[in-house]
């Protein structure tokens, strides 16, 4: 069920990105929204919005002239997705997770539903994802070009596999918590994605409007960390009692 929480957030994000990128071929439809968040109701919820102050650095344009098949998927010059800003300085692609506070020794079963990482238009969708230890990561290639998917990790074993054609699928899993595992394609130096690997289901990725939701938290005091690839990390302490819903916003300084 925890993967589903991610799916909701991640899926929303995915759809936003797709519409923003004005791609002709849509990314594969996000996994259907979970039918119910039954267990989530059993615990508390932390929601919030992530914003930033200052001026967001411009995302560099990507020269895709070597990859006609990818270039054709864009009407305007595609850019990197280092800082994806929404209206009113909302910040997307922030990985928010419970860094500390989950009782030691408590284990969570990883969902069997895979987190999907799609390579479409020579960019990763999603750009930032959360995944549980042991949960399958399904890496898809929607582009008719060679991609290699390299995971650079310290706590996990790094890997580097190739997908030379459209429709290829590779499934991998991580064995240890790590924030973040870097995913990159060396054929296309601009392609980067980040995976937050957690031992519990208490994480989310901020959507285009900067919002995030972590639910199903048992009562307790938690250290929440928000991670952004360019702006660094922020932490906050949140105490949850019963099934209450708390708001915790984060504000990054653009740099």
């Amino acid at each position: 069920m925890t993967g589903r929480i991610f799916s909701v957030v991640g899926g929303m994000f995915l759809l936003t990105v797709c519409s923003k990128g004005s791609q002709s071929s849509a990314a594969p439809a996000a996994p259907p929204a979970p039918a119910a968040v039954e267990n989530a109701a059993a615990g508390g919820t932390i929601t919030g919005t992530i914003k930033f102050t200052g001026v967001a650095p411009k995302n560099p344009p990507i020269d895709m002239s070597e990859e006609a098949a990818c270039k054709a998927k864009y009407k305007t010059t595609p850019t990197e997705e280092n800082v994806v800003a929404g209206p009113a300085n909302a910040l997307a692609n922030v990985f928010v997770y419970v860094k500390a506070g989950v009782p030691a020794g408590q284990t969570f079963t990883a969902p069997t539903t895979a987190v999907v990482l799609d390579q479409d238009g020579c960019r990763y969708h999603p750009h930032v994802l959360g995944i549980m230890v042991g949960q399958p990561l399904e890496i898809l290639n929607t582009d008719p070009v060679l991609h290699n998917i390299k995971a650079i990790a310290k706590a996990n074993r790094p890997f580097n596999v190739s997908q030379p054609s459209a429709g290829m699928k590779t499934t991998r899993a991580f064995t240890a918590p790590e924030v973040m595992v870097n995913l990159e394609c060396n054929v296309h130096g601009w392609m980067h994605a980040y995976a937050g690997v957690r031992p519990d289901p208490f994480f989310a990725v901020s959507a285009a409007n900067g919002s995030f939701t972590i639910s199903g938290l048992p009562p307790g005091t938690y250290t929440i960390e928000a991670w952004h690839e360019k702006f660094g990390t922020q932490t906050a302490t949140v105490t949850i009692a019963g099934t209450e819903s708390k708001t915790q916003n984060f504000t990054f300084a653009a740099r």
Partner: protein
Amino acid sequence: MIHALLLLTLVATQDTTAGKQIYTKWCAGCHGDNGAGDGPAAKHMIPPPRDFTGAVYQIRSTPSSQLPTDADLLRSIDEGLFGTAMPGWKSRLSDRQRRDVLAYIKTFSTFFADTTQRPQPIKFGNAPGGGSGAEALKVGRQFYDSIGCRKCHGDLGRGDGPSAPTLKDDAQHPIFAANLHENWRFNGGGTVEDIYRRLRTGLDGTPMPSFGDLIENKFLTDEQLWRVAQYVRSLSPKDAPVVRDVVHAPLTKSLPHAPDDSTWTAVAVYWFPLVGQIIHKARWFSPAVTGVWVKAVHTADSIALRVVWDDRSQSPDTSWLAHVGRVFATLQSDDSTPEQPAPWPDQLIVQFPVSIPTGMERPYFLMGSSGAPVYQWRWSSIARTAPVAGLARGIDRFEPLSSGGPAAQAVYDHGQWRVVFTRALASTDTASQLPFRTGRAIPVAFFASDGSNGEHGSRMAVSTWYFLALDEPVPARVFISPVLAMVLTLGLGMLVVWRAQQKTSYRRQQ
């Protein structure tokens, strides 16, 4: 059971204690006391020494992301990693010492302590029969294209693909896509089996991915992957080139001015390795040009010298600036202020003495000295047909000569420069411009810079003195003496036989 465990632990401790001593003495200078790849030599080589703490190894028999087997690690220790600063230790340390050091190296990472991660080598199929025929190579070439090898390794395999300038390893160090025409420099070995294994396993920690999943996904058959390996192997010569000291320049009727003139095909080629200029400040520890292939011919009045070398970039090329930045960040410089990357051109220098020496004495090989200058032809990729002749009096003193220099034609073709220099044998200014003469050993040396690797000024690849000989036509006496000797020998032999037979028949008659 407990006893067995105790024994195992004991053996393991003993190994690593002995291994630590060996490691500290022979390995730590590059790999660092704590195995982090940060020894004192680390910032003087690219690729940098392996960081053992991450347990990420290029040369394995296991799938991508898995640990290497002990046999894999031992092979890298024994044979070294070709084309890098890592030597083979097989002849340098005993079997026991190498096993102990292997055990110690594994203690740098907790991954090896985790017994659930026991590495499983891939079961490799045998090489398909008849795999190196023209048809097989054609298939191999098709898959070379379709699985995207050319993206990094380039259309002709010289490591000049469109993604080549952006490549870096996991630690952000610069890394070159291998030049597939130099299999003797492939880190894990240059046989077709080695190449196939690298394709199956990938080179973890580098941009080279594993292509093993393609077989499991039925995108490619095992045989087709073998064909790719066969094709890659076919790009390199059968044997690694051997240095021969003297370039023989035969006499031809007409002078080939163009690099791809058909005259060149029949002329013998000579290989000269180049190494980093680490003699004068600013030194250069990471040269990109590994060597030059040289051919020469002459006519009655002129000489043509063809120099061919592999270079991944047609410099100046701004797409390589980020690579230059990574190179500068990785290497420790002799300069007090760090250099800024700039789009430098490629350069080649051919060096001769000012006159052909009579004894063995000649000018200092590294661009002469103030007292004994050398005569040089300096070619640059920004003035391809206008090489500059001049006198060098040391690495930082070059005086161009106003006239009488060589002409040049150059071609850049898929990661390779081919440059032909032509000049009259005679020279009007015999004091500074070498007059070429036939039948003499003329000292010659070569220097090359790849601007897109940050090379310029004294940062370049150098050779020592070799020789160029303009061969004279074979005089008739060369054929007369052997014939004479043969006639004499045959006559003498027949005489001996005749005498022996005479004697015998004489005895018989008696």
